[in-house]
């Protein structure tokens, strides 16, 4: 077999003749390396983008000295980190200390294996359409939590331990939300394989018969399907993915002003670089999964996924090489669209970081368990009904549940506290009295009074001087 024939088999053929199994083996290895390096090589441009874009959104320039527009800044960062002294503190658990960054980076790279970046059955992903695709991704991201908690534990530092525990608790809480949003998509698609999920969204449009035939119209991505259930699932997934990657506004465990640097305080040099790469790689991977599940993966309008006919003819006139070139370019174009969509998500990550203040840790956990999880469960219920009994049944149940939830949560105490503008407003709404707390119970403290113009409602109801200390139980020790 000549080299050209072998190379052609390697690139294009799904059926390798017996005896040449090693062509398939090399193909597997090349695909795995492509996916791993694809994620790793995305990290330096992402670092550059974050620093520049964050700067522009904060009305300042980002780094612009190291190369044109600061493009070599990530290289300078990497060199600096490599040349730093690699310190291992004295009383750390050495094995865990060294293994923890690896444990955090590895799941990111491995998850990239099931992300479909193109439609081709051979080169479309590292593991094209393995039938447990999205479950594999979810399982590996759960294992990534080990890296965080082991980093915090092995650092022999109270604050690192706290940061590590907080971070891991946050990650597992929001993984539930992610998982339930993924269940929604799996229900709609009927398969766990990522290529199946993308195929379920590709080349399907809403519109007139002519529009659908021509391949234009409103794309039937999962985020628009079974509206608003797909949209709610997509929103839940997006919020959960920001929390999963410990990005702002969910970045309390690693915020510099809070716990020094959280679980990676004691790490320097290459190990810190691995945490860094793991965080950015995680951003890329969850964005890619979001694009795959909800935004149609590599698909846009079919007319944009192939070379235009005049270019195909041009290449054809170049002979067999031209035909090969056509095939190669045609398989690259959907990947470019996929990367453009992932780029939009990464832009949004940075945009959200520039805008939103940090969530306090208890607010974060409350939001995950009492907000995201019930909403995701209710959404799954509605999607299940919609699939079995038709869209309108599901929509009706969604509307009923939504109204019930809205009325209940808008009326609760916690929600009123959440939306009150002033303490006085809050107090009035909660108790209808201006002074719910009596401070005369404490010896030595004066009675807390309101300024005369506190509220018009107050002057119409009972006057402030009405609250006597006899009405409230005080302990005998204080009274005497």
């Amino acid at each position, binding site marked *: 077999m000549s080299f050209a024939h072998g190379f052609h088999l390697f690139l294009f053929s799904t059926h390798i003749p017996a005896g040449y199994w090693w062509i398939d083996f090399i193909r597997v290895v090349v695909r795995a390396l492509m996916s791993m390096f694809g994620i790793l090589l995305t990290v330096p441009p992402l670092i550059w983008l974050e620093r520049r*874009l964050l*700067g*522009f*959104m*904060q*009305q*300042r*320039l980002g780094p612009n000295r190291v190369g044109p527009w600061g493009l070599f800044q990530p290289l300078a960062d990497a060199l600096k980190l490599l040349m730093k002294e690699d310190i291992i503190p004295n009383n750390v658990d050495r094995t865990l200390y060294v293994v923890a960054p690896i444990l955090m980076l590895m799941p990111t790279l491995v998850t990239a294996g099931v992300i479909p970046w193109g439609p081709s059955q051979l080169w479309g992903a590292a593991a094209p359409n393995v039938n447990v695709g999205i479950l594999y991704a979810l399982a590996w991201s759960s294992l990534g939590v080990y890296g965080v908690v082991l980093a915090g534990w092995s650092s022999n530092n109270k604050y690192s331990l706290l940061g590590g525990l907080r971070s891991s608790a946050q990650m597992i809480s929001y993984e539930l939300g992610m998982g339930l949003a993924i269940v929604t998509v799996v229900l709609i698609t009927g398969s766990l394989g990522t290529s199946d999920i993308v195929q379920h969204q590709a080349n399907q449009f809403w519109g007139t018969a002519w529009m659908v035939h021509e391949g234009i119209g409103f794309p039937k991505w999962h985020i628009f399907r079974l509206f608003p259930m797909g949209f709610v699932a997509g929103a839940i997934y997006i919020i959960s993915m920001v929390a999963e990657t410990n990005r702002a506004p969910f970045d309390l465990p690693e915020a510099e002003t809070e716990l020094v640097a959280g679980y990676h305080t004691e790490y320097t040099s290459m190990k810190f670089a691995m945490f860094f790469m793991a965080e950015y790689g995680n951003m890329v991977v969850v964005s890619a999964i979001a694009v795959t599940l909800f935004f149609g993966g590599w698909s846009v309008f079919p007319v944009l996924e192939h070379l235009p006919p005049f270019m195909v003819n041009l290449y054809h006139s170049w002979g067999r090489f031209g035909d090969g070139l056509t095939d190669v370019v045609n398989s690259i174009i959907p990947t470019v669209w996929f990367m453009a969509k992932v780029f939009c998500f990464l832009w949004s990550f940075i*945009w*959200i970081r*520039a*805008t*939103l203040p940090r969530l306090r840790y208890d607010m974060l956990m409350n939001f995950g368990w009492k907000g995201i999880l019930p909403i995701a469960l209710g959404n799954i219920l509605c999607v299940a009904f919609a699939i079995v009994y038709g869209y309108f049944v599901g929509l009706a149940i969604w509307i009923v549940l939504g109204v019930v939830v*809205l*009325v209940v*949560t*808008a*009326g609760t105490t916690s*929600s*009123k506290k*959440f*939306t009150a503008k002033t303490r006085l407003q809050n107090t*009035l*709404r909660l108790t209808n009295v201006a002074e719910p707390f009596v401070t005369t119970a404490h010896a030595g403290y004066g009675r807390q009074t309101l300024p005369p113009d506190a509220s018009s409602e107050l002057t119409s109801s009972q006057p402030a001087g009405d609250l006597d200390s006899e009405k409230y139980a005080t302990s005998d020790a204080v009274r005497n």
Partner: protein
Amino acid sequence: MGLWDDIKALGQEISAPGKGMAITGSYVGRDTITVSYPEVRRPLSRRARWRHVLNRYENGLEKCIGCSLCAGACPANAIYVKAAENTEEKRVSPGERYAEQYEINMLRCIFCGYCEEACPVQAVQLKDIYELADDDRADFIYTKDMMLVPDPNLT
């Protein structure tokens, strides 16, 4: 304060991040407020007190008459003045004396400006030259030729 108000308030709270992102997003294409430092230097106020200069008169004679009032006024004892007589052949300043050696130890100087206030002829002044970083302690003793302004008649 009814249910509808609560729902409206909830809606406002949910849409608040979107409005915030619209603001930060609108900053992206616009000019930044960064001053690109070595290419552009921000103008300082008129009375900014940085490095000393020794002035001259229009005819080229130095203003400094070596009276050491600045050395006496300096709270950090940073100035060293060694005076010498003006002779007929060599006239450096109008008056009897001139400063043969005039040194300021910038590591001791606190940039208070008392020397500028004490000088009777307005010879020493603190200007807005602030790029004074160096890496050897000995180089921080600024001598007279480092601080003297150029002779206008020689340019």
